[in-house]
């Protein structure tokens, strides 16, 4: 039973990492598409990349750091409601950023991403910290 639970926890971390990494790649890809299609100029391209990076780098950094440097066999974390809250929070956060980039002009999108970082950081910071920064939360 304990073995099965560990596997689930491992999957939860990977799922979260995939969500964050997937959204980050899509968002960066869209910005690059805009730039190479000449839909935005270099100044806005740089500003958008910088802002996007500032929005996801702390969380992605923590995740990657966990897997590369701190992950140990046999780490256990609780599943259930906290896991789903983390998933929902991550999807809302990254989905909001993606929708800004897709639907708004780049300057407005950059401004909104900046704002959402200040307003909703608590939504993801706690969950990411719970799963990736705390390895003794069993």
């Amino acid at each position, binding site marked *: 039973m304990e073995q099965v639970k560990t596997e689930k926890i491992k999957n939860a971390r990977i799922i979260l990492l995939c969500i964050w990494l997937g959204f980050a790649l899509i968002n960066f890809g869209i910005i690059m598409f*805009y730039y190479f299609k*000449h*839909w*935005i*100029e270099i100044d*806005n391209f740089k500003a958008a990349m910088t802002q996007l990076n500032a929005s996801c780098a702390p969380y992605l950094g923590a995740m990657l750091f966990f897997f590369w440097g701190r992950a140990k066999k046999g780490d256990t974390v609780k599943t259930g409601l906290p896991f789903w809250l983390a998933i929902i929070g991550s999807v809302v956060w990254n989905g909001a950023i993606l929708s800004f980039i897709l639907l708004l*002009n*780049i*300057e407005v999108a950059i401004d909104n991403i900046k704002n959402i970082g200040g307003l909703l950081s608590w939504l993801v910071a706690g969950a990411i910290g719970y799963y990736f920064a705390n390895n003794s939360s069993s």
Partner: protein
Amino acid sequence: MKKGNEGWDIRCPDELKELFPKRSGYYYRVGHDIAKKVLIILSAAYHIPAPKLDNIPKGSSDYAMYDYDTQTVLLDNRNHLKSVFHEFYHHLDNMTGGEYDSADNAGSSSSLSWIFAEKLWNTFTNKEKKPSQKRVFGRLMILLLLFIFISLQAEEPKIVFQVNPGKVQLGDPVTLSWDAPGADAVFLTNIGRVEIKGQLEVYPKEKLTSYFLIVGSKFGLKVKAEEVKIEVIGGRGIFPQKEAFIHSWTYCLTAPSLVELLDCCHYVLQNAMRFEVDERYDRKKTTTVFVTGSSIQPDMVEKTEIHIRSRRISYWVEIRDNKSPQGKFTCEIRTFVEYQLRMENTWRPETSDSHYLQGAEKLYNLLAQHISPGR
């Protein structure tokens, strides 16, 4: 028969003058050969047969004579040219049936024959101006006097142009009142063509708004401008500065008057193209300047330019009063074009010259199309 010397037609052909290259300052003494040529030339000029020429009988007290019966001019060996003219006069009178009234006396110096000779001599030596020249000169003098008289009559309009109050909050009205007695047409900047006397309530938006009253006086000779400045507290600044307008093109527009052209430009920019327009008058350059805010022009984006969301243009138009009698005015059109990329809000200056020219051509065509007295 003509009485006296009225209506005399004095003819001196160039051929005669060419016989005597130096024709002023002294009398020519001529022999028979030259005298004969002179008589032939003069006769041809009057379309009469040339007289015969013979020596005057010896012992005669006269130096020259004319025989009416044989139509012969009798001359001494060397005679004054004026004497030849004198005798030709008699021959002319003889041939024209007494039209030159030569029977007035016996040939004293005050006789008509000498008057004829004198007149012909003056024409010959260019002392007497041609009647046609006299007429042209006289007419020019009359025209000049008439022009001076009319100019004095058409007194310069005394313009009264006032604003009340001179300082307002944004949104408050300002009353402009003007009177330009004697004016032919009046143009009020930012308003358009107005009556010679009037009053108007305006709501200025710019921080420092200027209104100019441009008055065309009679015959379009005078254009005057008066300025009032209104300080609008909280007013905005929406019009680009002149430095933004790098590209410029100069056109020539023909209009009945300057006021008509200004009114047309005001109409086209504000009503036809829907621009916000700021109008001013440059006293130093004597030009009227129209500056517009920016306005999006859908026709400036081609279907193939999918990366461009929109382009907008603003104009700087300077109309110079050339005082040309043909009603031709120099019109300098400056354009400032900006574009917006598909995923951006930022307006960026257009780099392609063709869009600047396209904008200028569009305005010029509209101006040329709208300039008509009947609009």
